[in-house]
């Protein structure tokens, strides 16, 4: 491990870019994960910025979000924001268990990696399940609908609307439901793929593949992805639900 000792030492420009070393002090795979995450950050940013644009244009017909998301499982009480807050909390905790898994990987602690990565997968599954429940509640809507002028086959008709679909919804402007489906759907799909990728790496840690490789960098790479998913949710939580 002669290289290991020199990785974090300050190097001259010539040593850095002269070849034979990584100027970033990171492996190819980790660097590419960072670049992928940067491009993904731009995808999510454009979605959230266009949400901001739509909210500014349709200021009057945009619903107050806490009057839409007030349901909580197993109760009919009016609890605004509480369920989304709980989902945020679950995702943050699963991010913490991922940090602990990466940390266990740094010391080659196989048991630790398997335990913490397993908990992360469970947290991710709970989050995806919560999102499915929220989508269901959003689509079905309340018992009492709202009379609205909607476009059906190119003709404007007055109609009782319950719940939401891509054409119209009972809550407010059409774009409100569209952005809800698109943003939380795009994020939910990221969480789902994250769970699948975590599961694959968990299996590799369990059967000793990573141990034989001599390092647990794969855990670090999927960890970066998982933290990014948590990071995106922090922004979605603020810009879709809180504001």
């Amino acid at each position, binding site marked *: *491990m002669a*290289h*290991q000792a020199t*990785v*974090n030492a300050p190097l001259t420009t010539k040593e850095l870019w002269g070849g034979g070393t*990584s*100027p*970033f*002090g*990171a*492996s*190819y*795979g*980790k*660097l590419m994960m*960072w670049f992928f995450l*940067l491009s993904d*950050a*731009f995808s999510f*940013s454009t979605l959230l*910025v*266009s949400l*901001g*644009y739509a909210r*500014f*244009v*349709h*200021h009057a017909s945009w619903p*107050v979000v*806490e009057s839409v998301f007030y349901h909580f499982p197993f109760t009919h009480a009016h609890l*605004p*924001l*509480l369920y989304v*807050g709980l989902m*945020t*909390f679950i995702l*943050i905790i699963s*991010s*913490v268990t*991922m940090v602990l898994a990466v*940390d266990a990987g*740094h*010391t*080659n602690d196989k048991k630790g990696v398997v335990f913490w990565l397993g908990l992360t997968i469970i947290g991710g599954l709970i989050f995806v399940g919560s999102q499915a429940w929220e989508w269901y509640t959003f689509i079905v809507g309340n018992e009492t609908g709202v009379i609205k002028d909607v476009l059906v086959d190119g003709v404007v008709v007055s109609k009782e609307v319950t719940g939401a679909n891509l054409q119209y919804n009972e809550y407010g402007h059409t774009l409100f439901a569209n952005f809800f489906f698109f943003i939380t759907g795009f994020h939910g799909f990221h969480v789902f793929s994250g769970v699948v990728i975590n599961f694959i790496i968990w299996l590799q840690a369990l059967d000793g593949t990573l141990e034989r*490789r*001599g*390092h*647990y*960098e794969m855990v670090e790479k999927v*960890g*970066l992805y998982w*933290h990014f998913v*948590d*990071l995106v949710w*922090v*922004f979605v*939580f*603020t810009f879709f639900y*809180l*504001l």
Partner: protein
Amino acid sequence: MEQELDQSLYYSAPHARTPEQTKKVRRKIVMVTLLLSAITIFEVVIGILYSKTHVGAESSTWQMIKMMYIVLTLIKAGYIVIVFMHLGDERKNLRTTILLPIVLLVYLIFICLFEGEYILQYVQDLLK
């Protein structure tokens, strides 16, 4: 040749750590966890007690709460990126490469929100 085959080996070798170092790392993780949870709980409580319908969407209180939400979000994001994703431990040129392009978003947000406000005004004037 070997370096190209498994380059990660040079940068991800297991670190030998004293129990004190482990304790220090764990404590940092716990502190950041508590901070992130506290901010989230605070946001939800504020959202329930001072809801938009309650204080009024046009009131200065709501404008202040809005700004506070954005600042708290950026604080949370900073802690996730710097501590959880270990970007703070990376070399300076990697940090710059990742963080500098984000600055472009400031311009995108600026033009989109101003354009949105203009369109709203335009349509309102048209309907007058």
